[in-house]
């Protein structure tokens, strides 16, 4: 009975159902963005970057922190981008360069270490209490539009988030396809040694991908911060990007986007229609279960490359 009733609810109130899907869609886009930054790093350096979620929080916190310190929003934004560059540069110099040729698992654990360092560092500098995102100062809209006699409510910030996310994806696609450094980046993603042999500097490329991921993290952080507040509690939610990756496959940009939307919408529908029946708040683990379920059928993810193993 508890499995069938929710379907009747969906059909019975289609506007509400649309609202739930919209909420899921918006969350899904944010998951996709985090997963996207992750896929970039994974493809270019083979590093499973656990710290991507923290970079989102760290970037948002830097932006808000700078603004609180009296810097105007449009100076704080480039300053934060600069901070993300410094972060990318120091990660490459201090961590990655020393760990070249180590097993993947070691690099993964190093990024967990990085995660903890960034949590401690961020809280030490900006304080542990939640902060408000400076939505107004960044000229982002914050009203809402309603349809169907106030039944369907769309937040303008959510629409803006979707547009900005789509724009940045298009921009990145152009960057990867048209510019010299973008092509070099794809070469590195394809084959490290071949890229080295045609004179591409791996170290530069790594700094570039970590920097791009940092900028994506900043965009995600602003959008997410506008929806709730900015605090390190966000990092647990950011971990949701991991099932998204599993679902989409670690190496596929398309997978990150599709996976993010599936997880985002699936989890909102699950929470809204089934969550109440089993005690609520199933959002915390449903994403992982959806991903696990998919894994049984496609162990490499929806769009991942099939790994051929040799002895």
């Amino acid at each position, binding site marked *: 009975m508890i499995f069938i009733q929710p379907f009747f609810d969906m059909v019975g109130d289609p506007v509400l159902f649309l609202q739930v899907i919209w909420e899921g869609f918006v969350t899904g886009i944010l998951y996709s963005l985090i997963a996207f930054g992750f896929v970039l790093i994974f493809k270019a350096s083979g590093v499973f970057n656990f710290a991507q979620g923290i970079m989102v929080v760290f970037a948002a916190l830097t932006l808000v922190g700078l603004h609180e310190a009296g810097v105007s929003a449009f100076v704080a934004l480039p300053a934060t981008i600069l901070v993300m560059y410094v972060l990318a540069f120091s990660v490459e110099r201090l961590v990655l360069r020393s760990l070249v040729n180590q097993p993947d698992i*070691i690099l993964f*654990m190093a990024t967990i*270490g990085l995660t903890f360092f960034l949590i401690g560092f961020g809280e030490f500098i900006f304080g542990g209490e939640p902060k408000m995102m400076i939505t107004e100062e960044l000229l982002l809209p914050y009203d809402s539009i309603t349809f169907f006699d106030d039944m369907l409510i769309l937040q303008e910030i959510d629409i803006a988030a979707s547009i900005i996310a789509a724009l940045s994806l298009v921009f990145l696609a152009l960057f990867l396809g048209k510019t010299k450094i973008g092509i070099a980046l794809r070469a590195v993603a394809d084959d490290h040694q071949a890229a080295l042999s045609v004179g591409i500097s791996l170290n530069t490329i790594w700094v570039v991908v970590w920097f791009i991921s940092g900028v994506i993290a900043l965009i995600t952080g602003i959008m997410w911060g506008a929806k709730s507040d900015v605090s390190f509690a966000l990092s647990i939610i950011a971990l949701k990007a991991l099932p998204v990756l599993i679902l989409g496959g670690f190496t596929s940009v398309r997978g990150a986007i599709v996976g993010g939307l599936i997880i985002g919408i699936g989890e909102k529908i699950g929470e809204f229609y089934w969550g109440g029946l089993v005690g*609520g708040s199933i959002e915390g683990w449903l994403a992982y279960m959806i991903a696990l379920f998919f*894994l049984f059928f496609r162990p490499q993810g929806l769009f991942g490359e099939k790994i051929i193993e040799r002895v």
Partner: protein
Amino acid sequence: MFYREAGQFKTTYISDQELFPVKQDRWGILLIIGFSFIVIPLIANDYWLQAILIPFLIFSLAALGLNILTGYAGQLSLGTGGFMAVGAYSCYKLVTIFPETNVILLILVSGFFSAGIGLIFGIPSLKIKGFYLAVATLAAQFFFEWLFGRVKWFYNYNDSGAIEVPVRKFFDIAVTGPIATAQTRYVVVLCIVTFLALIAVNIVRGRIGRAWMAIRDMDIAAELIGIRPLTTKLIAFAISSYYAGVAGALFVFAYLGSAEVEVFDINISFEILFMIIIGGLGSISGAFLGAAFIVLIPILITNLPRMLGMPINAATVEHFNFMILGALIVLFLIFEPHGLAKIWTIMREKLRVWPFPY
């Protein structure tokens, strides 16, 4: 000069296969065990027992479990906290359902529940590997955090939502509950940890342990020489979760006294992972060294500035703890990926040839 194995001849197979083939090691271990059983309960005060030694032993046990899974069998897990929670909550249910049964026995039995859960979450390990598996174990972590927080049956419909450890006696001495002394709880924990650690040492050097290491080093090659990946990986998951479960039960029953499910959040999983990275992946002694290290860091960060005359507040301590922990992980991975246990081995080699190294 003192640490030499010259003159210790092995004349039988039994003596050749001893746990500690070097005489000095054997005496050293016996000395440590004897010291911790007899001397420490006599001289240590409540602060030492409660704040350092009991958590150290419990975390060692959990780290030992994770090291079996990650260090020996090569299956990365981020769900240790979830398995510990299963142990703790099943122990709580057992103790309240069977109030007459010996609590120490029930703590050991509760490990079997988490072992069963570990088996279930180990099944995907057959199809998925590496990072994919790590994320799958996160499912265990978040699912059990939700389950024990939401389903009231697990905490006996308490208003507080926390599990309170009832008083249970063993030969008229209170072992658990608010009236149990730190000394008793320390001895109970020590007995269980020593017992399980000895078993672990024997498992990892036997057939099962070798099969784990073969799977870890290259699973396809291991399969080709006749090791069953399914059973080997599942045994690793079961045994590892058993250790985590017992550690979780002890964590609530012998250390915290009462707990909500939040104590088993994802941070505890990471902390235990850090213990085995710093201590040494694939090493039993590494689990103990790593646990000691991680338990001591926050205490040092709190006390050191106070001794130097510039006290810092609790929030800053927390932040520094995170920063230093993260930095240490990266540093250890760069300079000594095999952890403290490897440093100890290097020291031992140096000690053997001291003072004439050439």
